[in-house]
């Protein structure tokens, strides 16, 4: 089915066949086959389809069973969820991409459950040191510790950033 540039649909579109949008659609698209959003089309919708090819404008989340492809002219704001996501050079996109094939527990660094649950102790130590440092600056007379040198502070900041 082709929705021509002259056609606007507001609401929920459901279908078992391919849909090409050349016009405007606002709402929800639930398709069993492919969706093509043409160059001049404007789609403001939550999209569910087998494959989604975007050359136009889409504002909304896109979920595809197989593939999402953003062509060079595409402008998309929303989250993309599909096993295969292709963003071509020139395409403008803002949002999250989830290809769903990364087993996060396997990819994460091996950490003991105890460490994973509690806040990182080494980081907590540095936080304390940084807090001490600021206290030193605020109340120099009350603190007995010698002031931390600027060079050391820089190192601490570097370590903290890496740990984060």
């Amino acid at each position, binding site marked *: 089915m*082709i929705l021509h540039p002259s*056609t*606007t649909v507001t*609401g929920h579109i459901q*279908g*078992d066949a391919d849909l090409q949008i050349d016009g405007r659609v606002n*709402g929800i698209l639930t398709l069993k086959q492919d969706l093509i959003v043409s160059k001049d089309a404007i789609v403001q919708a939550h999209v569910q389809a087998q494959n989604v090819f975007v050359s136009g404008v889409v504002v909304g989340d896109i979920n595809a069973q197989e593939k999402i492809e953003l062509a060079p002219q595409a402008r998309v704001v929303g989250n993309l969820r599909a096993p295969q996501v292709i963003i071509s050079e020139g395409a403008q996109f803002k949002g999250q991409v989830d290809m769903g094939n990364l087993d996060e527990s396997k990819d994460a660094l091996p950490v003991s459950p105890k460490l994973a649950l509690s806040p990182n102790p080494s980081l907590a130590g540095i936080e304390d040191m940084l807090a001490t440092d600021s206290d030193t600056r605020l109340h120099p007379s009350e603190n007995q510790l010698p002031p931390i040198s600027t060079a050391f502070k820089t190192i601490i900041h570097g370590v903290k950033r890496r740990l984060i």
Partner: protein
Amino acid sequence: MPKTIIGKSFIIDGEVSSSDQLVIEGTVKGTIQSDESVVVDSGAIVEAQINSPEVEISGRLIGNVLATAKVELKENSHVVGNLKAPSILIADGASFKGNVDMDC
């Protein structure tokens, strides 16, 4: 003449509007508006208000039709609703329940 066809396997719940002809083969619930004409095909199921200069019904329609030129209920059409247009044609074999208003 360009036209948009709402295909057989499609269900639209909401508003469809076009400046060209709209042909409904699938299911539409809500509102249908065209600046040219609306054709409800023989297999179509429409539960909607239709606004268009010309409206031609061959399928099933529940809803009111407001046309500035002509409404035509074809053979085997099934319509429940009110029709308002200067020219209204109901063919032999059409089934219709509702008001007819030609006083435009």
